[in-house]
């Protein structure tokens, strides 16, 4: 753990019970997140990419203990979040915030913008209502909204504006960490860049640390410092952004990258594409051995029987694959 590591996740697991029958007997578990470890340095952005259902959002929620982890630990600025009482956890919440995927559903429809943004201030700061209104106006300005928007209701805004409200709400208490759970997935492409640029500006301005969850590889490359690639609840590869995009080592990372179109028609027409066959397996019944073995174009027998261990191919570049050899040390 480095000295300015803000978040340290070790062997995090989140299993959702599957129940059956009138008595709700537990018959199995959906292994949404199944043993994940990573660190986030202060002021940096960790991108988390993967297909739908790979457990990205669950990591985000479990990390903030909006859901209780099944196993594993999360240290936030040296404090074990799992060991905090509900009251202490509540007091820690201002320092770690979340921007949600669906800007239409994540704002209370019966509250005005000023009360949505101002509510955490009421709860955690002792401000007069005048100071609070001034702070709300300041926050609205920071995210590019006007002060007169404060007394409107969320339904009166467009998706992009609502996401800005969500960001203003998240930064209201000067957090250290913001988990961005696919913040741009529900937005029009033309709005996506605006919101991402806004988030980058705020990061520079306020010294924020991001966990940026997305399935958009291009956007992650743009915003992230390090990138983790997830598949079926596990991290397949984790590296600095340049290393991951220029020298992907895991077959899944290569397949994901080749699925993203290149904005150059000549390259796009000629480049080699790896097409994965089949669907992502059910997380309630994951394949034995390497979870990716059922779809991996390079899988060998060993992949189906033995779980690959995490190995570092170069400093800061880890991968979980039998076919990747660690450099001779």
């Amino acid at each position, binding site marked *: 753990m480095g000295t300015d590591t803000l978040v340290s996740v070790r062997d995090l697991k989140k299993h959702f019970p599957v129940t059956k029958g009138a008595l*709700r007997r537990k018959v199995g578990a959906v292994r949404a997140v199944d043993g994940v470890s990573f660190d986030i340095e202060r002021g940096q952005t960790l991108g988390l990419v993967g297909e739908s259902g790979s457990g990205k959002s669950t990591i985000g*929620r479990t990390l*903030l203990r*909006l859901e209780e982890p099944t196993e594993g630990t999360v240290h936030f600025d040296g404090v074990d979040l799992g060991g905090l009482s*509900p009251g202490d956890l*509540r*007091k*820690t*919440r*201002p320092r770690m*915030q*979340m921007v*949600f995927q*669906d800007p239409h*559903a*994540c*704002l*209370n*429809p*019966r509250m005005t913008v000023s009360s949505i943004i101002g*509510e*955490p201030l009421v*709860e*955690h700061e002792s401000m007069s209502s005048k100071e609070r209104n001034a702070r709300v106006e300041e926050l609205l300005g920071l995210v590019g909204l006007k002060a007169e928007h404060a007394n409107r*209701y969320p*339904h009166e805004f467009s998706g992009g504006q609502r996401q800005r409200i*969500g960001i203003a*709400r998240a930064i209201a208490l000067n957090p250290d960490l913001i988990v961005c759970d696919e913040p741009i997935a529900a937005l029009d492409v033309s709005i996506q860049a605006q919101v991402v640029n806004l988030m980058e500006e705020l990061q520079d301005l306020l010294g924020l640390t991001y966990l940026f969850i997305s399935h958009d590889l291009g956007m992650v490359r743009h915003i992230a410092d390090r990138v983790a690639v997830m598949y079926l609840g596990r991290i397949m590869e984790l590296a600095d952004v340049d290393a991951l995009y220029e020298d992907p080592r895991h077959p899944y990372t290569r397949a994901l990258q080749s699925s993203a179109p290149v904005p150059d028609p000549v390259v796009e027409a000629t480049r080699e594409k790896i097409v994965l066959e089949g669907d992502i397996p059910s997380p309630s019944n994951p394949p034995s051995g390497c979870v990716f073995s059922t779809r991996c174009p390079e899988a060998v027998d060993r992949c189906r029987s033995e779980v690959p261990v995490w190995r570092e191919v170069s400093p800061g570049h880890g991968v979980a694959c039998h076919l990747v050899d660690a450099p001779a040390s």
Partner: protein
Amino acid sequence: MLWFIGRRLTIAVPTLIAISFVIFAILDLAPGDPTSSLPLSIPPDVREQIREALGFNDPFLTRWVLWMKQVFINEPISLFETMFNVQVGSGERTRVISWQSRAPVVETIAERLPQTTWVMGLAFIFGILIAVPVGVISAYRQYSVFDQVGTFFSMVGYSVPTFFTGLLAIVIFSVHLGWFPSYYDTTLEVTDWDSLVAQIKQLVMPVGVLSMFNAAALSRFTRSSMLDNLSEDYVRTARSKGLKEKRVLVRHVLRNSLIPVVTLIAMQVPGIFAGALITEQIFRINGIGHLLISAIHMGDVPMVQTLSFMVAALTVFFNLVADVVYGILDPRIRYD
């Protein structure tokens, strides 16, 4: 919003005229006539004269229009006169007269209304006070013991009719335990402490039975509305703000869940004035429900017509109230 209310009130007028036609027509088609309850010794030709004098032999449309004039014009003016103690015009106008008592129907209703509103109103308020907390806790602790017990009791409360629970309450609490009187004494006047205790005692059983019945359906409704909202994203947002769980539950989830519940409550308000047909019979409360049943037995058509029309008019009005309340509670609804 004002435009909306104005438009709806304007639409309410033809609606009420149509309702009055239906009520009048149905009762006119029903068998029986005003002389049937008179002594058998009255000879047929005298009966015919009575019918003629009551205007029973006029064509249907004539009688309907005359009745509408009585209901929409004469009765409101008479009500105005009694309320403000003034005389409008000559004071001479035909009123809707009960065939049983020969007294104006409206006066009889005014006599009976306080008993009904007391019992029904209290049952209504207690029903809400029980149902909302039960619904909230059941939803918050879904599938807990509390939820299961609450579900059981609301299923029982909703499916067992009040004539059974009412009689059961009488057998247990009046006959065996002797705690409460088995009937409601309307003549009781609250003047001192003892009469207040007696009044409360006689209210306990009818109000209890009715509020359990009201609470059963309402608590299920509150529970499902809470469950819908508990899984919403904005609840997670509220939790991530680091709010106290109570504040999340009350300020965020409950306030949103109450939107449909409040409209349901608003639409049940006419029931306070319509009375409870069966429960009033069982506990011998001579309220509106009791009045309606006896009027039906005696073939008192003007009384039945007026009571039915009164409930219809209240229903139309509180439907409008429910819509307006919905618009106030949910900022997403705009009527203009």
